[in-house]
């Protein structure tokens, strides 16, 4: 399997930065750090498997990040409001959702982001569908996941079919 040099460089830089943060920038730590960084890069490449390396697009990631943070805060406020009310206003249930995003990192990111959305957690990810547990079946769960899926699809390299799902919260 041939590995593109860009993938190696990215990982080396990332793990190097990680080591730098962990050791507080101390110079004496690098005799241990350098082999560790190289080893981590090697292990990560092994684990990444049959290299479907569709690069994340950093600029769009920057633009979408505030949306994720905002949704996550809304999600926490939603849980807080429900839990603190004496009547405990919940109406939980399972919702199934067919996925159009291709398998790989995007799906895992989607599953993790669904967990951040108000009122939903992802329960199972299996062959082209995802089972979501919702705190309130009255919420527009499917519409929200569709919106999220569109945003995550636009994070990854060119994918002409899914560029339309952006906009409207």
């Amino acid at each position, binding site marked *: 399997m041939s590995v593109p040099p860009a993938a190696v460089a990215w990982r080396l830089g990332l793990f190097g930065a990680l080591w730098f943060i962990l050791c507080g920038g101390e110079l004496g730590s690098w005799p241990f750090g350098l082999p560790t960084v190289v080893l981590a890069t090697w292990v990560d490449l092994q684990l990444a498997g049959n290299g479907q390396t569709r690069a994340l697009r950093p600029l769009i990631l920057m633009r979408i990040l505030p949306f994720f943070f905002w949704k996550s805060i809304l*999600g926490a406020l939603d849980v807080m409001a429900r839990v603190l009310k004496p009547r405990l206003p919940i109406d939980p249930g399972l919702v199934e959702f067919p996925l159009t995003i291709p398998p790989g990192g995007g799906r895992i990111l989607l599953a993790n982001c669904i967990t951040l959305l108000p009122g939903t957690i992802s329960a*199972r990810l299996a062959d082209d569908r995802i089972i979501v547990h919702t705190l309130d079946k009255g919420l527009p769960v499917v519409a929200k996941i569709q919106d999220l899926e569109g945003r995550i699809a636009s994070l990854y390299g060119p994918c002409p079919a899914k560029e339309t799902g952006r906009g409207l919260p």
Partner: protein
Amino acid sequence: MYVGQGGLIMTEVVGMVFIIIGIPFFLSGTIGLLRLPDIYTRLHALTKADNVGLGFVILGLAIQATSWLEVAKLFLIWFLVLVASATSCHLVADAALRRNIKPWTKE
């Protein structure tokens, strides 16, 4: 507190406000863990409320921090907790579904 520079006190106070905002999220996470009826709903309380609470606490501490390395380390901790708890939430929900634990529903 006793340092006369206005800017220093400003970051201290703003940081403290963020930290204090974070605390109620933790408390509601614990209350949710105790009050909610089944494992799936409890996962909601744990993964959402606690992560956001920790986010606010870390944001506050980062505002007060004196070096960039400390800020980087704080956000690294937050990122790790975020990924770890989202992943373990998914794992537990998946395992519970596999064992046919029915979600609690309103009658």
